[in-house]
């Protein structure tokens, strides 16, 4: 049976917490689900993945100050190129040269409702 506070379900029958306003305390083995991305990165999802099968133009949605998200990206052996929207600003004003490496971890942080600042770390030439 779901756990409700007032009339709102806070823990579903599938043991999913939902509609929590704040969480305080500590956690141990508590890991993000991985969301497969098509072209839109919903920044509310903490962990995303994408293997490029063609050049891709991404969008980033649901921006709000402080929201963060990671994208695990494989540009594949063919070296496809991702394109990010102009709302994404890169460290030291320099977008990575994506074809320099195959695997990328892109960290996205929303500074407000319209600007994302991003980091990128590469593996595998």
């Amino acid at each position: 049976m779901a756990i409700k506070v007032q009339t709102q379900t806070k823990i579903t029958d599938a043991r999913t917490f939902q509609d929590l306003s704040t969480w305080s305390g500590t956690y141990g083995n508590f890991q993000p689900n991985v969301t497969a991305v098509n072209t839109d990165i919903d920044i509310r999802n903490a962990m995303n993945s994408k293997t490029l099968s063609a050049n891709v133009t991404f969008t980033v949605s649901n921006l709000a100050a402080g929201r963060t998200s990671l994208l695990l990206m494989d540009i594949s052996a063919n070296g496809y190129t991702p394109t990010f929207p102009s709302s994404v600003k890169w460290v030291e004003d320099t977008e990575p040269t994506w074809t320099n490496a195959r695997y990328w971890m892109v960290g996205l942080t929303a500074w407000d409702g319209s600007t994302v600042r991003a980091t990128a770390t590469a593996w595998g030439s």
Partner: protein
Amino acid sequence: MAIKVNTTPVITDTGILESITGASGNYGVLQPTISTTTNNINFGTPMMNCVLTANTTFSESGVSQGKTATLLLDTSANFYTPSWSSSITWENGTEPTWGSWRYWQITFIADSASDIRAAAVGFTSTGGGTPPLSISLEGTAANPERFITVPTGNGDMVAGWRFGSDGNVYQYESFNNQGGQGYTLHNTVTWINVPPSTTYYIRASNYSGSFTLSVGDSSSINTWNALTSNNSFRYRDSRNVLTYADEEGYMKIEISTTSNGSNIVATGYYGVRWTGFA
């Protein structure tokens, strides 16, 4: 009704999960609440943002081993400089050159309560760290920059403007006024955008309105005063608030590079309106 384990609430009536000693499983849409800070890294609010309005020294609180925090720092168009406590050790042993980039994303992780490791990445070049000099004032003769204050009847209504030696512009509302807090920063607007490297001079003159500046509550009026110290220009209404309706006063402000006003570089108009009860 809150959900309790034994006698301890773990989900409050407002949906706050609290006093959790551990969590296991997976999460999806779970994002931090962002907190605005002015000079403290609070590990109890792990996602913070800050826009510097002056060079600022940060402290830390709520630090214990394993806690992490992120600060989204905007050094502003003036490229103010943050400084940090000795508890913080920077990546590769080198503190970033803050003047190189305007925006910084700084990640802190506590190795112990007194040992915090930090890493920072910068965004948006400052072009060398020194913005071009800009001296500016607000308001026009037709549309002065003004605010509205409400007297309470508990003492005189006093309100006005300050042009600080620090380059900032402040509003003044007496504690006798409703919500008055003395001097408060006027948004983030400055009369000069970098620390002055030479002496500038300011002159205030009465421009319009039903009231004129209070000589006793103001710096010298109609005089070129050095901006090496704060210059304040204020109105005072000592009457019973029940005896008058709305009043207002407007002043013309000029800034010159010379002590005789021969080179005026900025002109603005500022005012105050206060509401009487008659």
